[in-house]
């Protein structure tokens, strides 16, 4: 006698209860607060905001806590929440030239107006585990100086004054802002949609693609013209107000790559650009994004599309980690019926083979 498996509903409920319990862990250990996550795991929060496409530290911290530190799961939570939010419009373009800078480096000029500012960076730390951090620690107050009023023009703007680099494309004022979360994506895609895709893209995927261009799979000779991190103001032009209203400020990391020059019989050679922008302090992401943005401009700049990083359908279709993890992990779902169909076919093919085998043997003899 056989009784079909039942009780899936109770299994799901119980799994959710167990998950909640496991997430909390040992009750003797104090529970994490969102402030702790936001303050002390700040770069994780930045990544979740960037790839979740929602600037909200508190929600990102909540998502990280709920996801037990699984950042892709946290990004998924933020995305699903974001999809339900009403939309009032698009902000004015942010002016990163007017950024209140905390960190700013250029690898193309030794000194630049406004200076190089190292800021909070892992760059020159020796990667030695710090046993002091295992307990509580109270680091020394940071060194400080008066905030400078000196303008900090972007390195690419300085190059452009001499005509040494291509102009940044300027969108017409009335041109609609593309949004791949609201419009189905078609190929070839314009650069605004490509950059949106890359801004939401998985950091690891972009890192690997950017790296591949450096190793010769679509090489484009990058120099880190400038990487800057700091706060910028966001303005919104409300229809009834008639002027742009400040909404507050957000932390951004911007990377402007200066790439392989290009010229023709009619145009003097100039450097080309690759652009990266991410919420918070996300330098690896912004740099990788700039490398891939430049690689994806291959057709526009008359280069052969040969490497994966230059292939817009390949890059844009596989960059989203929420999509990718969903489809990879869906293999966990039951596939009994299609597997059964495949099994039936395989058994038949094997039976045909067995039947044919003796005849084959005879034919060979």
């Amino acid at each position: 006698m056989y009784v079909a498996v039942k009780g899936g509903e109770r299994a799901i409920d119980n799994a959710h209860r167990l998950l909640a319990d496991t997430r909390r862990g040992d009750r003797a250990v104090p529970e994490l607060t969102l402030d702790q996550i936001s303050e002390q795991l700040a770069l994780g929060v930045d990544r979740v905001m960037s790839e979740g496409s929602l600037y909200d530290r508190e929600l990102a911290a909540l998502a990280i806590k709920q996801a037990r530190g699984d950042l892709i799961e946290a990004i998924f939570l933020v995305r699903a929440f974001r999809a339900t939010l009403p939309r009032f419009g698009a902000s004015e373009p942010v002016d990163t030239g007017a950024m209140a800078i905390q960190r700013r480096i250029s690898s193309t000029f030794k000194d630049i107006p406004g200076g190089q500012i190292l800021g909070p960076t892992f760059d020159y730390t020796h990667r030695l585990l710090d046993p002091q951090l295992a307990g509580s620690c109270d680091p020394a107050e940071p060194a400080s100086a008066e905030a400078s009023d000196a303008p900090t023009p972007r390195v690419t703007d300085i190059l452009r004054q001499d005509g040494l680099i291509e102009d940044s494309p300027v969108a017409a004022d009335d041109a609609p802002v593309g949004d791949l979360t609201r419009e189905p994506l078609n190929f070839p895609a314009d650069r605004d949609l490509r950059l949106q895709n890359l801004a939401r893209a998985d950091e690891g995927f972009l890192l690997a693609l950017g790296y591949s261009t450096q190793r010769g799979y679509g090489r484009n000779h990058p120099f880190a013209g400038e990487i800057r991190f700091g706060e910028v103001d966001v303005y919104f032009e409300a229809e009834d107000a008639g002027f742009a209203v400040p909404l507050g400020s957000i932390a951004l990391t911007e990377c402007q790559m200066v790439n392989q020059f290009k010229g023709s019989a009619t145009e003097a050679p100039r450097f080309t650009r690759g652009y990266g922008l991410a919420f918070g302090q996300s330098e690896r992401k912004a740099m990788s994004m700039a490398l891939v943005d430049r690689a994806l401009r291959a057709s526009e700049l008359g280069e052969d599309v040969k490497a994966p990083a230059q292939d817009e359908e390949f890059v844009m279709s596989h960059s989203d980690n929420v999509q990718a993890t969903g489809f990879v992990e869906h293999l966990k779902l039951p596939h009994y019926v299609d597997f059964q169909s495949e099994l039936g076919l395989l058994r038949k093919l094997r039976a045909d083979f067995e039947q044919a085998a003796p005849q084959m043997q005879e034919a060979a003899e």
Partner: protein
Amino acid sequence: MIEASYNFAYLDEQTKRMIRRAILKAIAIPGYQVPFASREMPMPYGWGTGGVQVTASILGPDDTLKVIDQGSDDTTNAISIRKFFAKTAGVATTTSTPAASVIQTRHRIPETTLHEGQVLVYQVPIPEPLRFLEPRETETRRMHALAEYGLMHVKLYEDIAKFGHIATSYAYPVKVAGRYVMDPSPTPKFDNPKMNDCAALQLFGAGREKRIYAIPPYTQVVSLDFEDHPFTRYRQNAPCALCGAEDSYLDEIVTDDRGGRMFVCSDTDYCEGRRAQGHTGTESAPMEAADA
């Protein structure tokens, strides 16, 4: 800080309108994949987000919803999706195929013949039947535009040359209304004939790939084949061990590690219905014993 209040059937009205317009176009162009701006859903891509968006856009308070996965109402993902709609739309749910007005499915078409007025919503992972022959959307779109399906026939023919049979056992491609080649989603090819001249409306939603397509009722759906290698259905050569059905698609149950196998209906509603009518199989339990 977060006030979770969601619209009827979860999706906002603008999204529903966009999906509804896509559905109307899909019905008007049978088998053509209409691009739509799929939303990020609170369930993973690949787990039915396309089907869920289609269902959410058509569902009304008077509907009765059935959700199946692998033919069964009681598989975990089917339960999860059914609960989602019971919660967000407050609709009545059922496991009975004839009683449902909307049926969302993954990988199966119910055994019970569907009737007029019903809507069958398929969850689709990869909507493009040509995708495994040509990964580029720009190329496959051109091939559909020109009805240039030679590549598909070449693939099927290569199977025959290599294996003596068409080696596609599920997601078996069909031609709809004599024009578009369409992926029926990963249903076993056993189910393909049920799509032809079906009284119900069939809608297909692919969330991750952002496509919706449809087969209107009473539409010709032909499985691709060759004159000398006609399409054949495949069914395990056994009756259902619970209800004795000889015409249903079967799940294979591994009963021990010494090669023991038994076969039971994959469509649990169909199987239960037959048992309620008194049909039995070799392994069937008396009804009251099973309930205990």
